[in-house]
């Protein structure tokens, strides 16, 4: 295990590691390590076959390389694809059985697993390295017929649902990282909302990479059946290490007729130190299918962490009158890089999409919005509105906007607006003159810039996100 002199711990308060014994798969990517994962998870044969199919496909795939941020070659044979806290090999039946050290870690992260202490109304599924540790509020949800559990449990207990929907939005053969995930995914969340049920609370997953030399490959599948509604949140942190760690998750959402899914992410993976050493490679595939008529999928993301963020949470608007939304804040500071945006694929009639992207770049960071709006020839009377705003701080950072627009239907309209601005000295002086210091002023101005996106977050997370916005930019104005 590589160790580093953690003298910047105060900059990244989630940078601690927890000393917990873990069980790991054999190092490297092989049929054996995949079999090991499947066995550890007590998976049925069909799941193992699915994984192996992905693995075989992977052999013929190459990593994509069209993105703006380049990264050194990843040695996939040098990673562990499964790491679980040892005490979790027998999954705890109640919170009392959860390793106290794990509970401690989550406390440090500010996620009280303990139901009594919890924020009201948020059910949490916590994923530590590769295993889902505990899911709170399960009983209350079960009464409504809602299934909220780890994907591993779902594979064992709800095989029909998993077989039907897993890989239906992100196919096995999609692209390198998605296919890699399909072969080696370890854990993640599974949500099923039955017809006409409005999920009474925010569902939430918290991801944490603890072990070193570990990739995290979580898989999330959310299905909103006809006429249902769910709001789902994920948060992520990782300890500080001087190596780069890969996080390649797949998230699939399916909304049937009249259903709505709201998916919010607050991503604060370790961004690396001030000189760009270490940090997470956050290469994630997130895609939602508005499969039914009048369905809606809304992505909100606040991306402040990771050395490289490379993701495009997308919507496939198949159902007539379906709606896709993407609200994004991407903050890059120091040497961080982000290439993020969305894809809105309009297939059904009268489909609508809205994209609001706020990119903030400071230090020597580089921030790219890349997005596709594709209106198919049958998608009559469809509409898209896109607004991309970039804010630059200092003169060593970069911001880029790369929109791809394809409109194959003459009755449909696409609008694109983009702005680039700098925080100006007059704004800072004004705030300072009213008693705020430089960091408070920057935080205030940037939060104002991001307001339209922050408003989309559920209340208690909006407050957290606002603080995070301020913290991520500390020291960015001299």
């Amino acid at each position: 295990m590589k160790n580093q002199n953690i003298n910047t711990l105060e900059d990244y308060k989630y940078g601690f590691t927890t000393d917990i014994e873990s069980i790991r798969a054999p190092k490297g990517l092989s049929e054996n390590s995949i079999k090991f994962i499947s066995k550890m998870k007590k998976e049925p044969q069909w799941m193992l076959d699915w994984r192996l199919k992905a693995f075989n496909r992977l052999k013929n795939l190459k990593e994509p390389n069209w993105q703006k941020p380049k990264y050194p070659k990843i040695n996939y044979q040098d990673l562990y694809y499964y790491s679980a806290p040892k005490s979790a090999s027998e999954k705890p039946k109640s919170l009392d059985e959860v390793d106290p050290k794990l509970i401690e870690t989550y406390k440090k992260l500010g996620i009280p697993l303990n139901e009594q202490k919890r924020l009201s109304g948020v059910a949490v599924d916590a994923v530590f390295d590769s295993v889902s540790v505990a899911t709170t509020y399960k009983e209350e949800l079960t009464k409504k017929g809602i299934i909220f559990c780890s994907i591993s449990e779902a594979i064992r207990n709800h095989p029909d649902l998993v077989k039907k929907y897993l890989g239906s939005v992100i196919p096995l053969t999609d692209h390198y990282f998605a296919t890699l995930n399909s072969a080696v995914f370890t854990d993640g969340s599974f949500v099923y909302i039955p017809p006409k049920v409005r999920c009474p609370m925010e569902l939430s997953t918290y991801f944490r990479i603890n072990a070193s030399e570990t990739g995290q490959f979580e898989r999330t599948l959310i299905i909103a059946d006809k006429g249902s509604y769910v709001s789902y949140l994920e948060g992520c942190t990782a300890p500080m290490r001087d190596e780069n760690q890969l996080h390649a998750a797949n998230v699939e959402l399916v909304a049937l007729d009249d259903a709505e899914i709201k998916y919010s992410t607050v991503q604060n993976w370790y961004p690396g130190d001030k000189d760009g050493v270490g940090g997470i490679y956050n290469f994630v595939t997130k895609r939602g299918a508005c499969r039914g008529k009048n369905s809606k999928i809304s992505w909100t993301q606040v991306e402040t962490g990771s050395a490289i963020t490379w993701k495009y949470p997308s919507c496939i608007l198949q159902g007539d009158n379906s709606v896709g939304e993407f609200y994004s804040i991407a903050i890059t500071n120091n040497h961080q890089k982000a290439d993020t945006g969305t894809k809105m694929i309009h297939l059904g009639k009268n489909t609508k999409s809205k994209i609001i992207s706020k990119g903030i770049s400071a230090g020597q960071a580089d921030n790219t919005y890349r997005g596709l709006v594709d209106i198919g020839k049958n998608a009559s009377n469809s509409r898209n509105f896109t607004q991309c705003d970039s804010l630059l701080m200092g003169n060593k950072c970069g911001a880029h906007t790369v929109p791809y627009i394809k409109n194959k239907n003459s009755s449909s309209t696409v609008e694109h607006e983009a702005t680039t601005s700098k925080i100006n000295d007059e704004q800072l002086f004004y705030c300072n003159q009213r008693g705020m210091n430089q960091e408070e002023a920057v935080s205030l101005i940037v939060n104002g810039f991001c307001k339209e996106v922050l408003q989309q977050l559920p209340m208690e997370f909006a407050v957290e996100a606002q603080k995070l916005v301020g913290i991520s930019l500390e020291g960015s104005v001299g």
Partner: protein
Amino acid sequence: MLEIKNLKASINSRDIIKGLDITIKPGELHAIMGPNGSGKSTLANVLSGKNGYHISGVIQYKGKNLIEIPVDERAQKGIFLAFQYPTEIPGVNTNNFLKTSLNKVRKSKGEKELDTLTFLKIVKEKSAELGIDEKILSRQLNVGFSGGEKKKNEILQMKILDPSFMILDETDSGLDIDALKTIANGVNSSRDKKKSFLVITHYQRLLNYIKPDFVHVLSDGKIVKSGGMELAVELEKTGYKKIK
């Protein structure tokens, strides 16, 4: 309250203030008049601590040298600048901004921070007192404000923050007579034995309402003449050229 001795300020090696002396005692209101480019706004910026100027001389405020103290700390110590051109900050709610500001000032004085309800009560009171529509405070800070609204917003902030030394940088410029009275009312109702003002203006108009104790004429970075209200009246008649 404020004692300025031989103050010099330059920006990008261009001298703007070239040896300025002024003493402002508690309870006094001083007006600074002068032609365009004489250094009036620079004086306001330098007193409030804006970066970018090269400064020499002494600025004593309540017995302490201000020059090394950063802008935000000066503000917390009771120095307030009503801006000539208040800047727009999109997405930032004016009430939230002002509440953050007030709580920073209170905290630095060791006072308890106010919750939203108490804060809004103060806002209601003060805006009623000045006859300013409090609705402007629920809008984004200065965004889409008319010239008059921006200036009124400055004066309302001044009332709420309750500073001890207030600089008004051409707050009266471009205002109609009603708005001008609102500004004057804001100044007059803030005057007491412990508070002082430095009012920068081009015109006698505002001074008719706020009655300065002293009037100074700033020209080419120096005070060339000081007097009482009669000096403002004279200037209005003769212009600045005669004074030089």
